[in-house]
C-alpha cells in the first residue's frame, strides 16, 4: 500500500519537476498524432463516401422515344431476369419531366418548347449487393444495350472506380504516414522520459543501492510516458475535433458543396478512443524503451 502510494507520489513529483519538458512532450505528441488524425479522418470520410456510393450504384437504362408498352415490359422482364439486379423502377417520359422540374426548379425553362416529351423514359436499376463491381456492371450494361427498345445505358462507373483507387492509395498512405509519425512520437516521448530519468540519476543510484528492483525504479517513468501519451492523444483528439468543426462551419458558410456536410463525419467514439489508446501504447512503449537499460544493469 505504502509502496503504491510512494510510486504514485514519485510519478507526480517526476512530472511536476519536469513539467516544462513534459508539456513540450505532450504538445508535440498531440500534434504528431493529430497530423496522422487529419490524414486518417480524410481517409475515413472518403472510404465511407466511396462505400455509400458503391451501395448506390445505379444503372440508368434510357428507352427509345415512343417505345410501345409491350416493348417496355419486355425490357423490364429482361432486367428482372438479370442476377445482378436488385430492383427496377420505371420512370415514364412524363415523370422524367416532373422530376426535372422538381430537382431544378430554376432551370425549368430549359424544357420549354421542346414538346411534350423532351426527356426519354427510363428504368432505374439498383444493383444487388455483391454485384457492384465494375466488371459485372459493365457486362450487364453490354447485355442490356442489345435489348430492343433500349436507346442507351449509363452508369457512373468511372469516377466511382477512381474514388475506390484513391481510397486504397490513401490506405497505404495512412499506413506509411502512421508508421513514420509513430516512430517520431516514440522518439519524442523517449527523449522526454530520458531527460526526466537523468534529472534523477542520483536518486536512482540510491534506490539501487538499497535494493530496489529495476522494475520498481522504472514504474514512475513508464507511468510518466503513458501519461504523456494519453494526454497527447486526448489533446490531439480535441485539436482534430476543433479543426473539424471549424472546417464544417466554413464549408457551410461558403455554401460550396451543399449537402457534403451531411456526408462528412467525425470519427465514431470507438475510433476516438482508439486514438487515445494509441497514445497510451506509444507512451508506455517509448518509456519502456528508454528505461530498458536500467532494467538490465547491476550497478
Amino acid at each position: 500500500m505504502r509502496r503504491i502510494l510512494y510510486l504514485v507520489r514519485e510519478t507526480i513529483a517526476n512530472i511536476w519537476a519536469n513539467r516544462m519538458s513534459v508539456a513540450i512532450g505532450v504538445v508535440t505528441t498531440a500534434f504528431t498524432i493529430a497530423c496522422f488524425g487529419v490524414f486518417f479522418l480524410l481517409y475515413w470520410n472518403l472510404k465511407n463516401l466511396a462505400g455509400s456510393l458503391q451501395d448506390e450504384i445505379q444503372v440508368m437504362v434510357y428507352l427509345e422515344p415512343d417505345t410501345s408498352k409491350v416493348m417496355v415490359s419486355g425490357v423490364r422482364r429482361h432486367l428482372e431476369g438479370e442476377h445482378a439486379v436488385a430492383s427496377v423502377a420505371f420512370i415514364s417520359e412524363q415523370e422524367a419531366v416532373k422530376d426535372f422540374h422538381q430537382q431544378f426548379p430554376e432551370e425549368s425553362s430549359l424544357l420549354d418548347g421542346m414538346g411534350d416529351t423532351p426527356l426519354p423514359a427510363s428504368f432505374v436499376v439498383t444493383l444487388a449487393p455483391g454485384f457492384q463491381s465494375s466488371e459485372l456492371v459493365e457486362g450487364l450494361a453490354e447485355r442490356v444495350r442489345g435489348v430492343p427498345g433500349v436507346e442507351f445505358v449509363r452508369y457512373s462507373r468511372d469516377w466511382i472506380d477512381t474514388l475506390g483507387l484513391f481510397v486504397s492509395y490513401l490506405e497505404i498512405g495512412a499506413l506509411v504516414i502512421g508508421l513514420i509519425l509513430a516512430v517520431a512520437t516514440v522518439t519524442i516521448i523517449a527523449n522526454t522520459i530520458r531527460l526526466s530519468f537523468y534529472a534523477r540519476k542520483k536518486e536512482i543510484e540510491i534506490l539501487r543501492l538499497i535494493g530496489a528492483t529495476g522494475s520498481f525504479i522504472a514504474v514512475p517513468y513508464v507511468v510518466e510516458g503513458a501519461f504523456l501519451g494519453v494526454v497527447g492523444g486526448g489533446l490531439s483528439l480535441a485539436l482534430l475535433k476543433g479543426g473539424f468543426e471549424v472546417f464544417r462551419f466554413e464549408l457551410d458558410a461558403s455554401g460550396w458543396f451543399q449537402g457534403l456536410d451531411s456526408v462528412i463525419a467525425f470519427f465514431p467514439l470507438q475510433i476516438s478512443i482508439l486514438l487515445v489508446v494509441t497514445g497510451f501504447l506509444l507512451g508506455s512503449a517509448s518509456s519502456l524503451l528508454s528505461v530498458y537499460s536500467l532494467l538490465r544493469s547491476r550497478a
Partner: protein
Amino acid sequence: MIQFFQVTKYFDRYAALRDVTLRVDKGECVLLTGPSGAGKTTLLKLIFGAEVPDEGQILVQNRNIARLRASDVPYLRRTMGFVLQDFKLLPQKTVFENVALPLIIQGTAGLEVRRKVSEALKAVGLDHKRGSQAAGVSAGEQQRVCIARAIVNSPIILLADEPTGNLDTNLTMEIIELFKAIHARGTTVMLATHNRQVVEEMKGRIIRLHSGRVLSDQGVYSETNSLSCP
C-alpha cells in the same frame, strides 16, 4: 558469511584486486585499509554485486555472487546496509522518508515502517529530527541518517566506505561509537577507511590492501603494523 576465493578484478586490464582470498565470519568487525587506489571500494562493490569478479568466486551468505543474475542483485542488497562517504540522501525528502525508503521498496506495511524507522532513528539519536528536510540537517547528522537507513532493515552485514571522510574528529568519534554499537548487537561490519582514528578506535580485524593485494590481515591495530604499511 563472506568468502573470497582468489578473486581478481580488472578495470581495462588494470587489476584493481589481485588474487584476493579472505573469509569474514558472522559478527566480525573488519576494517579495510590501505592507500588510495588499493582496491577497498572495489572489494566492497564486489560484495554487494555492483561489480562482477573477472576471476575467482565470492560467496556471500552461501550465495555465489559471481553467478548472481542482475535481477537477483536487489534481493542480495536487501540483506545488507550501506554507508558511503558522500551521504547519498534524498535532499528534498524528510529524515523519516529517507530512512523509510529501504522498507517502502520492499512493501513493508505502514505501521511496521513507522516502528522500525523510529527505532533506527533512536539508535542514531535523531528521532527528534524525523520531520526535518534531509538537506537541512548538519553533515554529522546526515551521516547518522545514512546509518539509520542502513540499519533500518536489520541487515546481516553492514558495509561502509569512508563513512567519516567528510567529517571532523568529533563527528568521526560519534560515528565510530555508532558503528561499535551496531557491531555489538551482532551485525557483521565491514568498513573501508584510511582514517587512522577510525582504525585505532574500532579495534577490529584489520585487512590491509595495497595495489589490489592483501598485504596483511590481523586482529587489532598496532603502531608497528601501521608503520610497515607504505
